[in-house]
């Protein structure tokens, strides 16, 4: 019987211990993106940028609150994304979130944010449905959607005289979305899609698909998917001596693609909404601060958006206080808000309008804006 | 009509005839010894009889009903049970669990009944418990106390006893004992045979076939014996007579 009493005393001790847990006065903001896995480069760049925004804000000495960034890893997998989104949303200390690089993940999590009433700003995912499929007031987005991206892409490619395409997409909502919007933009311009191939992002061997594409002999291979899959497809095209132009989407605009594909990356095209970071209104300052902060990873293509989203949230909290509902209302009312990516205005679906689409080509191991490249100047030629 | 009759039973593995046109018959109350050198087909015969091996040729009948191609389960149903040369008890299960498996025919294994009729199950378990302890106490009263302990805690001879009891509890008509003395001392073998003879006295209609290497045992307990060599029957009769058979001597006893 004694032992039982000892145990009860122990439990009571533990209970008191827990009663004394301190409560911090920090305002928590979550960051969700892929921190591990094939597309982690983009996610880490985004996290660093959001972290930078929080650090600068805390160091400025002018903010009412002290902020803390809670970074969570969605691994670019919808199911993991739903888990961490639930975790973040379920924590009452988290006021808002800078969330998602992968469209596939964002499509899964928007319901969670809506259910728990957590206002979030998407910083990288480009599928239109994320903001437009539902009328969720919690969801906002600072970057543009893939619609404009594909319009520009289709126009540009047709202008350059390409006539036939084969489409490979990774079957996620992201890949399917690109497939849909690109075909839509292409058909009025007279371009023809000879074949569409759904692949699995984790697939290793693409020779079967590529052999079939080789038979169709299109001018261009359009790839709707992310960098790791893109690298494999580009490398295996070489196995089959295919000289098609490789046209990617915003999902491959990442240093990881160049690192993975090596020499084969030369001449790969891709399109992305928003100006290149260094050409953004606040781009120079951002790059300077980012370099000063000495992060291990580069900001990558969407770092500036993540930075802007974090700042937008902190501005709202400064104004209305750390309360989810108030912050959500404040974010919805965003109009002509100054940021490093230019003026941010949300439409009634929380979507920022981003007019500029940038065309990229890989030249000498770098993503170069088309207009500045030797290809545009005629010094270099694409494979077809 | 004989209880069991086996006619020209043949079992072969690839080209090897492990059992070659073996004929044999058994009446109620018989106690037959099955002897022969290693690999002469004794265990193969048991396996063929209990449906584990399917014979290529020949026939087996029990009470005149053909059971040549019957499954092990069907052979159990007609009352043929056996022990194994290498013990086939489950060491981690209790003595009771091991024994009661022999009683399979009398157990209700319907899932619904087992899950929802717990009172009925409990009554049945108690019945079977007392049946098992009765059986054990006939064999060796000391064993009754071990009824709920795992078999792994028992000595070799006790495990042999349990295996024989498992066969007996099914109330067989034909009992096949595959070298029960393997791994035991002379004294232990003697004790086990005593137990067996005591049991046999009480149920005189039980027919037993015993595979055994110790000729003393065969001599003492059986009333007939069959000698196998290379899968063929080379002699049959009382041990004293058979053991003088020159064929048997050369093949088995190694004498000139």
């Amino acid at each position, binding site marked *: 019987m004694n*032992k*039982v009493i000892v*145990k009860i005393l122990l439990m009571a001790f*533990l209970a008191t*211990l*827990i009663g004394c*847990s301190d409560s911090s006065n920090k305002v928590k903001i979550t960051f969700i993106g892929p921190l*591990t896995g094939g597309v982690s480069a983009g996610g880490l760049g985004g996290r660093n940028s959001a972290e930078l925004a929080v650090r600068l804000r805390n160091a400025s000495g002018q903010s009412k609150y002290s902020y803390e960034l809670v970074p969570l890893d969605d691994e670019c*997998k*919808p*199911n*993991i994304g*739903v*888990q961490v989104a*639930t975790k973040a*949303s*379920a*924590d009452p200390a988290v006021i808002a979130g800078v969330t998602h690089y992968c469209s*596939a993940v964002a499509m*899964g999590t928007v*319901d*969670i944010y809506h*259910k*728990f009433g957590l206002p979030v700003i998407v910083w990288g995912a480009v599928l239109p449905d994320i903001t437009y499929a539902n009328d969720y007031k919690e969801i906002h987005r600072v970057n543009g959607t893939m619609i404009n991206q594909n319009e520009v892409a289709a126009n540009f490619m047709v202008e350059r005289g390409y006539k036939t395409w084969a489409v490979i997409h990774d*079957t*996620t909502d992201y890949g*399917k979305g690109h497939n849909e919007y690109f075909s839509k933009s292409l058909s009025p311009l007279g371009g023809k899609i000879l074949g569409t191939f*759904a692949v*699995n992002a*984790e697939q290793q061997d693409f020779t079967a698909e590529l052999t079939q594409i080789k038979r169709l002999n299109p001018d261009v291979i359009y790839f709707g998917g992310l960098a790791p899959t893109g690298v494999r497809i580009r490398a295996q095209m070489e196995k089959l001596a295919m000289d098609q132009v490789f046209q990617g989407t915003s999902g491959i605009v990442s240093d990881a693609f160049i690192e993975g594909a090596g020499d084969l990356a030369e001449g790969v095209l891709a399109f992305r909404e928003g100006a290149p970071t260094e050409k953004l209104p606040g781009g120079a300052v951002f790059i300077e601060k980012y370099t000063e902060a000495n992060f291990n990873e580069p900001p990558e293509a969407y770092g500036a958006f993540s930075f802007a989203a974090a700042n937008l949230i902190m501005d709202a909290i400064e104004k209305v206080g750390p309360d989810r509902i108030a912050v959500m209302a404040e974010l919805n009312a965003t109009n002509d808000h100054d940021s490093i990516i230019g003026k941010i205005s949300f439409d009634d679906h929380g979507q920022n309008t981003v007019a500029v689409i940038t065309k990229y080509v890989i030249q000498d191991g770098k993503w170069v804006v088309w207009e500045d490249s030797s290809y545009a100047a005629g010094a270099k030629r694409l494979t077809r | 009509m004989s209880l069991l009759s086996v006619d020209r039973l043949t079992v072969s593995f690839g080209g090897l005839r492990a059992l070659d046109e073996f004929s044999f018959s058994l009446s109620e109350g018989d106690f037959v010894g099955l002897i022969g050198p290693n690999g002469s087909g004794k265990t193969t015969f048991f396996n063929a009889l*209990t*449906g*584990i091996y399917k014979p290529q040729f020949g026939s087996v009948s029990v009470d005149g009903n053909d059971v040549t191609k019957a499954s*092990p*389960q069907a*052979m*159990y149903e007609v009352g043929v*049970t*056996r022990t*194994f040369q290498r013990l*086939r*008890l*489950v060491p*981690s*299960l*209790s003595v009771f*669990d091991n024994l009661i*498996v*022999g009683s*399979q025919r009398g157990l209700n*294994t319907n*899932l619904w009944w*087992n*899950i929802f009729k*717990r009172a009925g*199950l*409990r009554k049945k*378990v108690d019945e079977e418990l007392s049946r098992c302890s009765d059986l054990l106490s006939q064999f060796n009263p000391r064993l009754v106390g071990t009824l*709920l302990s795992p078999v792994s805690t028992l000595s070799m001879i006790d495990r042999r006893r349990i295996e024989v009891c*498992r066969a007996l509890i099914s109330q067989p008509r034909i009992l096949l004992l595959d070298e029960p003395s393997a791994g035991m001392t002379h004294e232990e073998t003697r004790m086990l045979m005593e137990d067996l003879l005591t049991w046999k006295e009480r149920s005189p209609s039980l027919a037993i076939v015993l595979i055994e290497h110790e000729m003393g045992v065969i001599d003492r307990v059986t009333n007939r014996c069959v000698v196998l060599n290379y899968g063929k029957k080379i002699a049959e009769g009382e041990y004293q007579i058979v053991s003088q058979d020159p064929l048997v001597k050369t093949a088995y006893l190694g004498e000139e």
Partner: protein
Amino acid sequence: MANFVKGHFLITILATIAGLFVYFFLHLERSWEIVLVVGLAVLTMVVSRRKNLIARAQETCLQKPKFSISVFFVAAVAIIFALRSEHFALLMLTTVLLYITVCFGLTAQFGFVGLVNFAGIAFFGIGAYTTAVLYQYAAIPDFLIILASGLVAAVIGSILILPILRTKGHYAALITIAFGVLFRTFLEVNDTLGGPQGLKVDGISVFGLSFNENINLGLLGTGSSYVTYSILALVLCLVTFVFVRRMENSWVGLNMDMVRHDEIAAASFGIHPPSWKILAFTLGNFFAGLAGSIYASMSGFIAPASFNFADSLVLVSIVLLGGLGNVFSVIPAAFLVVVLPEKLQLIQEYRLLIFGIVVILILRFKPSGIMPRGARRYYPSLGVKK
């Protein structure tokens, strides 16, 4: 009489202690607190093992199964209410309860009849996908959807029965491994089932009670929507527990054990091994399907990536870590394997690594698991000296 009271008292105390541990384990957030709770739990285990308290406690509970089960059930409900506003803790609790349910089924397959199923998560997934599809296309009561999900898992599992019965050992292991991979690949390439993107699933509502809304708990205020799910999972878990335990402690369990240990001896005593294998396999998959169904509507979203081969491994490891065949042991093992890595942010990134190392160590040095299986007890007082 005194003994009787003492027994009940002891069980209540046990349930309270276990309940408090689970509550704090789920409630606390900081790593050092979690480490403290787990350390304390391990300490309690070690001390009580030295004094042979665990065996005595288990014995006491086994003798009064109905009372123990109701007390532990009440303790579990108390935990759920204590956590009523903590969404994430409840989500984890529900997940653990569902995993435990699947592992009960796996115990019947692996622990009783000896069929190792490396596709456990696939059957869980079949249940989840059935639920998702039925919600979308069929207008049948939600309660029936759960049941149907279990049935579909069992029916699809029956495709594997023929190959599994014909093969043994590693060859049989290959069948389930191949099926697990096949299932996941199929989901990924199959567009109508959402492909790698996955499917959204509506929440359950039974008799007008929507499981996805926060619920009013009267005096206790508003509870998280997960309260209802965790209670549903708890009930499912309890029912399967009682079912599997009763099955173990009956002629069915006996025959299954015989089939696992020695098919030839079993057959020689009239047992038909294939029937028992089919029964255990189908039943286990049915349980997995039921659990998968609730999981799908609780998480609101399912994707092929949730049903990886690695997840099947986690399930098999839970069964082995606890102690193969011991139905109770699944419970602590599942808590450790599922919740601990979630809780320890420190080790989160290293969780699979640490998990792998722990399983290796246990298999190497304590192959019978943390709570080895005890003897069969056909009824509570069997073998108790009167």
